[in-house]
């Protein structure tokens, strides 16, 4: 059974705004019956102000699809269309106090239905910008289609490449076999052969064969470099990371922005640690800066 939050259950068992809005002037229909999810969102929009007066949903889908639809209608009622366009799937998931990674696509479907309905009201055509595949990386909710596209677009060759570009495989690492299978498939289509030991596509901030142990200054510089290279991926999710202190081989970091308090923060830290160790060729422990405070206190005491 999924570990649904109380909020998801509440919206599932007592959905708000179920059914189509009478005299709706905007309709968005998204989903795919083959995947078992389909959502029709109907809105009544006041023409002068573009305020959403009423919102109703009809959903064919699982518990979290119904809950996402229900909470979406609650979020957008009273918003103007421009405000509503700013609603993200993360907003929907947050209002539901989180969704299991396999179910995040339910919140995506909600956002898409909203965009489709607004496009419909404005006489525009809404086009879905991504195809969804089977979930591969459960830590970061990355699906097969996304990985395939990135492999094609960036000429990725190894699991490490895939992790660098998509984060997939950077957490618990149990999906590495599946990622290798995708690499094998795509590379075969390109007439190449998958080689697990191939060199990374981008020469990363890697110093060849570290002979002598790093000095503390070298180590700090190196860690900064690696964090810099990881920053774009974090910022894509609205987060960031800041190096606070390095003591021996322990790096203390602050997760900021959306990373702060994110359920995935621990995973992300594990991913950063793995990347640091790979690049620096030595054991590095990454610890939240909050832990350092405790340590210092102990030393002072």
């Amino acid at each position, binding site marked *: *059974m999924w570990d649904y939050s109380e909020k998801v*259950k509440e919206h*599932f*068992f007592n*959905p708000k705004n*179920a*059914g189509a809005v009478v005299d709706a002037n905007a309709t968005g*229909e*998204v*989903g*795919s*019956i*083959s*995947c*078992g*999810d*389909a*959502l*029709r969102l109907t809105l009544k929009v006041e023409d002068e102000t573009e305020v959403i007066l009423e919102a109703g*949903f*009809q*959903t*064919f*889908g*699982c*518990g*979290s*699809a*119904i809950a996402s639809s229900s909470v979406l209608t609650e979020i957008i009622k009273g918003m103007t269309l421009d405000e509503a366009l700013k609603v993200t799937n993360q907003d929907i998931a947050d209002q539901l106090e989180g969704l299991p990674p*396999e*179910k995040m696509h339910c919140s*995506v*479907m909600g956002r*898409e239905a909203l965009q*489709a309905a607004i496009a419909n009201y404005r006489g525009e055509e*809404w*086009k*879905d910008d*991504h*195809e*969804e*595949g*089977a*979930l591969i990386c459960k830590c970061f909710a990355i699906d097969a289609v996304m990985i395939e596209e990135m492999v094609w677009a960036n000429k990725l060759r190894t699991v490490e490449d895939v992790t660098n570009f998509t984060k997939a495989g950077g957490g618990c690492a149990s999906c590495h076999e599946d990622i290798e299978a995708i690499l094998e498939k795509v590379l075969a289509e390109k007439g190449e052969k998958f080689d697990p030991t191939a060199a990374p596509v981008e020469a990363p901030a890697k110093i060849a064969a570290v002979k002598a142990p790093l000095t503390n200054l070298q180590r700090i510089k190196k860690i900064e470099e690696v964090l810099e290279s990881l920053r774009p991926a974090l910022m894509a999710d609205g987060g960031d990371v800041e190096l606070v202190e390095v003591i021996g081989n322990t790096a203390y970091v602050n997760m900021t922005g959306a990373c702060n308090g994110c359920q995935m923060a621990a995973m992300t830290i594990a991913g950063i640690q793995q990347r640091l160790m790979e690049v620096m060729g030595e054991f590095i422990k990454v610890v939240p800066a909050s832990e350092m405070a405790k340590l210092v206190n102990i030393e002072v005491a």
Partner: protein
Amino acid sequence: MTDIYLDNNATTKVDPAVVDVMIPYFLEQYGNPSSIHKFADGVARGLKQARQQVQALIGCEHDSEIIFTSCGTESNSTAILSAIKAQPNKKEIITTTVEHPAILSVCEYLEKEGYTIHRMPVDKAGRLNLESYKKLLSDNVAIVSVMWANNETGTIFPVVEMAEMANAAGVMFHTDAVQAVGKIPMMLQDTKIDMLSVSGHKLHAPKGIGVLYLRRGTRFRPLLRGGHQERGRRAGTENSASIVGLGKACELALEFIEYENTKVKAMRDRLEQGITEAIPHCFVTGDIYNRLPNTTDIAFEYIEGESILMLLNKAGIAASSGSACTSGSLEPSHVMRAMDIPYTAAHGTIRFSFSRYNSMAEVDEVLKVMPGIVATLRKLSPYWDGAGPVADPEKAFAPTYA
């Protein structure tokens, strides 16, 4: 009303009599069966008795044909990998599209290694075509692996006949019988089945114990080497408590097999009839004339299975679904797709599977709540309008495919 458990094809409650015979093997006779002292001297006897109890249930000729394993999945992997290791020149495997992942994933893996996998399709009622099966049998086939009964629909395959055909063609035959053992009578010594998998937890024994039946004389290569246990065919210290528990469970299953096929079947039939009469736009999947006595799989059109399960769970009823969402995958059950069940119905399939612990009163309780649950969800469905499906549902609601 206490909670109602109708998910016995997933797993079963351990029979209290089974727990009772197991306890001494944790607290008193905990010695290693191979040891020579009084903590172990009863264990070998316990294992021998269990072997005979399993033998009686499946009707095999010798108790040495029973190999205890850790689960049905291990038995399945052992059977297939043994067949290909023992016959390295044979590079084809015959199976079906509706097997359990315990078979299909192994085949998929072997396909990558260069094996040719023949996955036999089924018709809309989940049945195989034996004519096409016959044509596939050849000297190149290392093993045929066909389930005795399907876990989702309960549909029974003619494995006895298929094993005869394989044998005539000189091909090894394995059957994954984890759903069939204990539910339908069998007499393996009168068949040409070479290997058969059993899972303890499907018949009121604990999880973590299984059996591979291996016909005497069948060429075999162990999966696990490293000890003399199970006559060298499955190394590893015996799970004595669970083996003894499985023995007891098999004895009870044999005792109750008539009950299963009369009383349990009557409960299943009443539930199925009651639901299909009371609820419009639902139908039973699989081969209804040829299936396990305890299983019914019903497709409720225009609604989704996980939602149905959540509402059933709230009403204290446990069942399971072939919907994509219950597994986290995007496709509905491969069994439903193999039978060409439309997507609008495949996502809404619910399997109710009974055991001897269920009662008619529980059936009545399910019949009381089920129509309301379906109606509630259909009210939310874009494919449903008031009292019936929208006209031409596939067209009336054609969302942008995400």
